């Protein structure tokens, strides 16, 4: 799985450089986010700009990351969801759980508040 990490203003941005986030690759994202929190990162932003398709496993990996954030007194937010991907969050009510921002820049700004 192609993940690119970038640290900006004490936020680790994880860019998911995949067209699909599904049962084939979501375990890798789950592990990568888990490792960030275990290594002491407090603020993680997962940017889904390139993700055109997400399934229940992909959603599950993000839920796992969100729970990891809570257990490590950290934060996990999301940015740049394509409209079809966003509709899956709405269908599963997960849009009420995650803080979702239109762009990585807006999310990073929100972490500073």
């Amino acid at each position, binding site marked *: 799985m192609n993940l690119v990490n970038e640290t900006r203003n004490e936020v680790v941005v994880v860019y998911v450089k995949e067209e699909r986030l*599904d049962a084939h690759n979501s375990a890798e994202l789950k592990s990568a986010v888990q490792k960030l929190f275990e290594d002491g990162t407090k603020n993680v932003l997962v940017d889904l700009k390139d993700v055109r398709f997400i399934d229940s496993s992909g959603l599950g990996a993000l839920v796992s990351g969100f729970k990891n954030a809570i257990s490590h007194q950290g934060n996990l937010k999301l940015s740049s969801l394509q409209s079809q991907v966003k509709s899956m969050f709405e269908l599963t009510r997960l849009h009420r759980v995650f803080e979702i921002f239109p762009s990585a820049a807006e999310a990073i700004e929100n972490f500073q508040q």
Partner: protein
Amino acid sequence: MAGNTIEVDIKVPNKTRYLSLIGKIGEDIARELEKYSGDKETLAYHLNLVLTEAMVNAIKHAGPKEPEKQVRIVISIHADDLTIRVYDDGQGFDINSIPPPNFEELEDRGRGIFLIRSLMDTVYYRKNCKENILEMKKKLV
């Protein structure tokens, strides 16, 4: 929607690396439906998702008897009736015993069948003597 008759019968190894291939076939079929009056891109996503979730389900329930098992997927469209059948030879499970997700509790798992049920009109899981069949139907209107 007369003239929209399509039947696709596919077998792939029961590996998650083939999810993308199966999903894309669903998307392409949706885009080929000349007389479908709804949003084809939304339907394409939904077919991709339903096929992905159903195939993951089949992989999970496939039997351990042979290391190289296959999943069979049949997609048929007759007039405005879409039927997707996914065959696995595992232990099977009673689909009616699976509760909808508890939206108040954050579980990592348990949204796949809910998504299929949300996007299709009817969902049945039945067994015959040699395999289990997940059958999903939708009116394409």
